[in-house]
């Protein structure tokens, strides 16, 4: 008789999330549907109904209530999960602060989707990045395998540092696209991720209060400790990633560098765009171009040190942002520049905003960006890519010209 260590299955990103949650033996799920996340909670509802997952499943009436329910369930020590997208994540915003401030190791899948108006259900990272100051760790997966693995890793990391984790996957590009995923046997996952014993929890009969008023003489220390936990989390993510590699043969870190030896031009990307960029850069490499790829897997805690080390020796960097901070630049671009500011020798950094609202990013876009950035020796903060024309050349209807002038 042989023991099945893994099973190779063809899963969408949403299904991979649900498999990860099931393997993590999550105890409480509060869920509300939103495209393109809905299949996650549908699948989990099925797993619970069929007894495959021994969890309490609460069909709440909004994402805000989903996170409020997760908050309280985690406060009594339950391993807790929810999933959302875009508008739902925005609605949760208050409770994201609340759960991180309460230092609860909740894990949430966020299927990245653009915010309205205009309505869009397609991939965009502005939803998650708008939440970057809430105290949640943020992971962005490139593949459906990484989606499943990141759910398991998220619990392992969150439960060590007592901070929540948001696992991000690109709407439709991952959530609805099927690819082979290795699903591990439950007993192997149990060894990697044992049951959660919360070090602090509210218990019946123990008269404590969690989350009460902190006067100005005390509040700051709570935030100091949250920041210290974030700082510690960077190392814990690397440690758990290495432990995962021993257990399952795949390693994960904060920053994934490829083709970086002798790279003069480096492309920095987040999420599924890395797959396109890898193929395009490999082709450029075959043509003798010195181009490298850096995929930022973790946006919080932001991998300052890893980015500085990785970019030593690079001449220029193109940061590709599938997001926008209006009035500023692409968000990764701004953060990469802040990471490099203290470096004695810095590459030039150019920021490309592209792919918003699910606009396709093709291999020829990547090649075009490499050619473009190589012409910009000083760097350029905000380059709109893929609009078809610079904004100044977008035709304006005659009746609007006066108002815009």
């Amino acid at each position, binding site marked *: 008789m042989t023991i099945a260590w893994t099973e190779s299955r063809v899963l969408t990103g949403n299904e991979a999330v649900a498999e990860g949650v099931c393997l993590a033996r999550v*105890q*409480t799920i*509060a869920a509300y549907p939103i495209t393109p996340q809905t299949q996650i909670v549908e699948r989990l509802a099925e797993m619970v109904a069929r007894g495959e997952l021994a*969890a*309490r499943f*609460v*069909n*709440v*009436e*909004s994402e*805000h*209530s*989903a996170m*409020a*329910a*997760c*908050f*309280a*369930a*985690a*406060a*009594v*020590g*339950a391993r*807790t999960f929810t999933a959302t997208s875009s508008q739902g994540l925005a609605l949760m915003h*208050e*409770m994201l602060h*609340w759960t991180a401030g309460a230092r609860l190791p909740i894990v949430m899948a966020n299927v990245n989707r653009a915010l309205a108006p205009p309505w869009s259900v397609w991939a965009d990272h502005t939803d998650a990045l708008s939440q970057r100051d809430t105290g949640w760790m943020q992971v962005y997966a490139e593949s459906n395998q990484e989606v499943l693995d990141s759910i398991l890793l998220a619990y392992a990391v969150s439960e060590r540092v007592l901070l929540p984790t948001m696992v991000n996957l690109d709407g439709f590009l991952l959530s609805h696209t099927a690819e082979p995923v290795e699903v591990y046997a439950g007993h192997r996952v149990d060894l990697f991720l044992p049951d959660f014993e919360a070090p602090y929890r*509210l*218990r*019946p*009969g*123990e*008269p*404590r*209060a*969690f*989350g*009460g*008023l*902190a*006067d100005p003489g*005390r509040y700051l220390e709570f935030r100091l400790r949250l920041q210290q936990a974030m700082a510690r989390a960077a190392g814990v993510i690397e440690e758990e990633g290495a432990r995962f590699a021993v257990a399952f043969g795949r390693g994960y870190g904060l920053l994934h560098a490829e083709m970086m030896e002798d790279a003069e031009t480096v492309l920095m990307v987040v999420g599924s765009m890395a797959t396109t960029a890898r193929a395009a850069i490999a082709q450029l490499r075959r043509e003798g171009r010195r181009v490298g790829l850096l995929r930022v897997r973790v946006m919080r805690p932001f991998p300052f040190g890893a980015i500085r080390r990785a970019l030593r020796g690079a001449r220029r960097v193109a940061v590709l942002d599938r997001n926008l901070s209006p009035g500023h630049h692409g968000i990764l671009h701004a953060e990469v520049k802040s990471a490099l500011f203290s470096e004695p020798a810095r590459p030039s950094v150019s920021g490309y905003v592209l792919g918003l609202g699910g606009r396709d990013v093709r291999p020829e876009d990547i090649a075009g960006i490499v050619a473009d950035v190589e012409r910009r020796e000083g760097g350029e903060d905000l380059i709109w890519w893929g609009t078809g024309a610079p904004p100044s050349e977008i035709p304006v209807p005659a009746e609007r010209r006066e108002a815009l002038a």
Partner: protein
Amino acid sequence: MNTGWGGMNTGWSELSREEYLHPGHVACQGCGAALAMRLVLKATGDRVMVVLPAACWTIIDGSFPTHALRVPLLHTAFETAAAAATGLRAGLDAVGAPPTTVMAWAGDGGTFDIGFQAISSAAERDEDMIYVCYDNEAYMNTGIQRSSATPWGAWTATTPAARPQDRPKKDIVGILAAHRIPYAATTTVAHPDDLVRKVTRALGVRGFRFLHLLAPCPPGWKVDSSLVIKAARLAVASGVFPLYEVEDGVRLTLNMSAPTVPVAEYLSLQGRFAHLTEEQAAHIQSMVDARWVDLEDWHLRTHGGPPIGIPSALDGHGRPGDVVPHG
């Protein structure tokens, strides 16, 4: 004649000598909200966990690291009492915690207004919790602004005397009863027998249980702190705040006989109604009368006979028919 299980209870309820509210809490003198918690916890005992959204009680409990209750308490965001209590129950069940009752404890703003979506949804799902709304009829913690629990004609900081509250108080018990929850009831801090009996009854039922608990606020109502009990007694005796309970959203039992005290007596006690003209006071009386007719009609449909009051619910002294409020 048996007019229903509520009407049959004319005896005393045991009021525990145990105190679960420590001295040293930071409520105002005469605070109805503090008294409400003290009495409810006497009925529940310590096998309860409190979920507390933003409310006066956020402050009353004391600032970190102090805690005024002898039971666990989870502070949560303003609109989330029922959602967080749902999660707390689910989490306790998931981790196999010892038996305990989850009690959401929210003010009128957190219940009638900002928390309304969550409470409606938790009630519809029949989540297993006791939800207590201690109602002081405005946003008192922020300095007396109007909520949808503020009664018609009342002054608040956002409904000034020149343009007072011009909508009737939201019928929160009626709305929740319409969710067909197993138990909903009204009570006040001035009727400890009635309060303890209703909390005890709620404890014996599973599912979503709602208590609407009138808790006068001396600064908000502009009454002297020594008159809080009198104000709550008059609220009941005048019919402004009738005592009743609804089972399964269908069977209503009035816990008092018809009001005998003119509403004007209740209104004149409070500075928040000082600007009212006689016509306006008469309008309030007519609204109270109409509401009583509705409730009595519902009681008649349930029980086939008129209500027999719990005398202690009216005056705290167990004398039938005595509706004279005691200050």
